[in-house]
């Protein structure tokens, strides 16, 4: 009897020991926090691409790396709290998607490294970092060059619509685009721009209806809210007979005529590179701020057909993806 109790005690002891070892191992897996202003999506191609790139560097989610994602569901004011939450979890670094997430992460910590991606402004001109070679502070990342591409985007639109002279610029206050870049590009291409503020989803229809017939094309500036309502906006634009181009591939998938956007695979590969280097002990200051070099043109032929737009050869030739 005593023998049995002893054996049982030993068994329980071993079990407890095994559990504690497992718990320690789980704790030692580095956690990467991801802060996003948008809403969760399923499937999540951006995250899947980053995980894919990390796999090629020898990282497997749940084995030797763990991700904690926090979404603000477009409520930018929630970001600081979410950033604090990640800091309290003792994450090894924070991947901040978009400028709003970056600002919240910077508020939350000055020591945990921050990788900012989808950052739309020149980081030096915006005062984020002192130099690209040695960013300084705890921030490094990838500049998406969105503002720089303003001219290229208008050019692609003009090439697609030869009679284009009046262009609507659809934006909301969170777009934070530099209008000066757009104005200059518009002037260079001989286009008149008309800025249309899409504040409230309920007013989208009215705002787009107002420009019906007054412009021959539209360009949509990115914002988290406009991203979430992309399908609605694309449908409204088609109904208004308005060829609309946009910034992200998802917009073209949702029905915008075309998009010219940073290559997701490239962004994912560079993000994985930053994560790998930081996990291996590099300091953010030693990791130069990078910028996107590859951009993908996506054309939605269904929308083109619905609008009666003939896509010229020069556009089809450079299109990386054609949605039929």
């Amino acid at each position, binding site marked *: 009897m005593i023998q049995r109790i002893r054996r049982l005690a030993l068994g329980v002891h071993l079990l407890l020991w095994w559990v504690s070892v497992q718990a320690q191992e789980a704790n030692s897996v580095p956690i990467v926090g991801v802060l996003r202003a948008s809403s969760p999506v399923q499937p999540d191609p951006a995250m899947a691409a980053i995980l894919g790139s990390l796999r090629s560097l020898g990282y497997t989610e749940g084995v030797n790396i763990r991700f904690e994602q926090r979404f603000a569901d477009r409520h930018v004011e929630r970001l600081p709290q979410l950033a604090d939450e990640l800091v309290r979890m003792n994450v090894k670094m924070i991947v901040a998607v978009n400028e709003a997430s970056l600002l919240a992460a910077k508020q939350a910590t000055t020591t945990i490294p921050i990788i900012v991606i989808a950052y739309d402004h020149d980081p030096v001109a915006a005062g984020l970092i002192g130099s690209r070679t040695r960013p300084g502070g705890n921030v490094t990342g990838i500049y998406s060059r969105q503002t720089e591409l303003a001219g290229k985007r208008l050019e692609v639109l003009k090439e697609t619509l030869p009679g284009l002279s009046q262009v609507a610029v659809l934006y909301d206050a969170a777009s934070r685009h530099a209008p000066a870049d757009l104005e200059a590009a518009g002037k260079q291409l001989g286009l008149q721009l008309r800025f249309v503020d899409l504040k409230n989803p309920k007013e989208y229809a009215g705002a787009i209806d107002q420009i019906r017939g007054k412009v021959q094309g539209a360009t949509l500036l990115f914002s988290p809210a406009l991203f979430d309502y992309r399908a609605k906006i694309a449908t409204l634009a088609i109904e208004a007979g308005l060829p609309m181009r946009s910034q992200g591939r998802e917009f073209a998938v949702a029905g915008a005529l075309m998009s010219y956007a940073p290559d997701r695979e490239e962004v994912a590969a560079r993000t994985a590179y930053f994560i790998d280097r930081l996990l291996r002990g590099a300091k953010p200051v030693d990791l130069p701020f990078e910028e996107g*070099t590859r951009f993908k043109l996506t054309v939605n032929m269904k929308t083109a057909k619905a609008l009666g737009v003939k896509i010229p050869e020069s556009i089809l030739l450079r299109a990386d993806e054609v949605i039929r």
Partner: protein
Amino acid sequence: MRRGLFLKYSVPLLFLVSGALVISGLVQIYFSYQENKAALARIQREKAVIAAVRIEQFVREVEHQLAWIAQTPWGSRGVPLDQRRLDSLRLLRHVPSVTEVSHLDPSGHEQLRVSRLAIDVVGSGQDFSNDPKFKQAIAHKTYFSPVYFRKESEPYMTIALSGGGEDTGVVIAETNLKFIWDVVAAMKVGTGGYAYVVDAQGRLIAHPDISLVLQKTDLSALQQIRAAASAPTDESGPVHVVVGTDLKGHEVLSAFAPIAPLGWMVFVDLPIGEALAPLYASAWRTIVLVLVGLGISGIASLVLVRRMVTPIKVLQAGAARLGAGDLDQRIEVKTGDELQALGD
């Protein structure tokens, strides 16, 4: 007299046997050091060659894609600018590393610039006739500019190609070199080794630590780079093993391969401690073997000398007795050799 004979034979015998052992041990260590070094250098050079070939292919591909645009003539036999633009768009599509293509007419004036980022420019007429991009390309068919950094952080090189004909111009591609960084960063060399690329002047172009590249680090003073600059670039020749130093002054075993069209070199360095780790193990084995051999040979020589000296001692004692007049006795020596004959 007894000790004299013993020492006289045992000491030289010991020296003879152990000397041979020690010398053979040292020779073995020396040759295995050389062979090990040569084998490692071969492996390292093969890695360097693989990286060099990949980088060369990358550059050749850009060159190849540019070549057929460059051959398009200008003037009356030429094609309209629209067609050139389509060709350029096709090029941008096929070669993701090229961000901008510009077309110079035979007089060196820019007629078209097509970019991924900026608005395309038609007929700027900008004069490049005195620019090395134009002059070097006309003179040597192909021109590779020094590596430069856009906005301090993006590595770029200008590749210019002339059509080679009277009515052809020059095509210029601004080429992003991050691909080369990726090739170098992906190289696995042992645990502490790494690959890097330097240009003809010894300036760092690619290194796993990108901040070193962006600081435009000059490596021309490093021993392995000086040695490579003067080494024959014949790949079939013997591997030149160089022990050089890294930027922190630690010794490294270094091998290189040239990237022919560019005059650049790929180096693969391995910390000497890691490179020679297997050698240290084998050196220890050799030392232990020599010590064991010394022990055995010492004992063996003692036994041998004793076997020789003992019957001599008996003979000596017998001879002394003979000398004292004791002629009846026999001298018992059972060695079965000349000494026994002497006793009998």
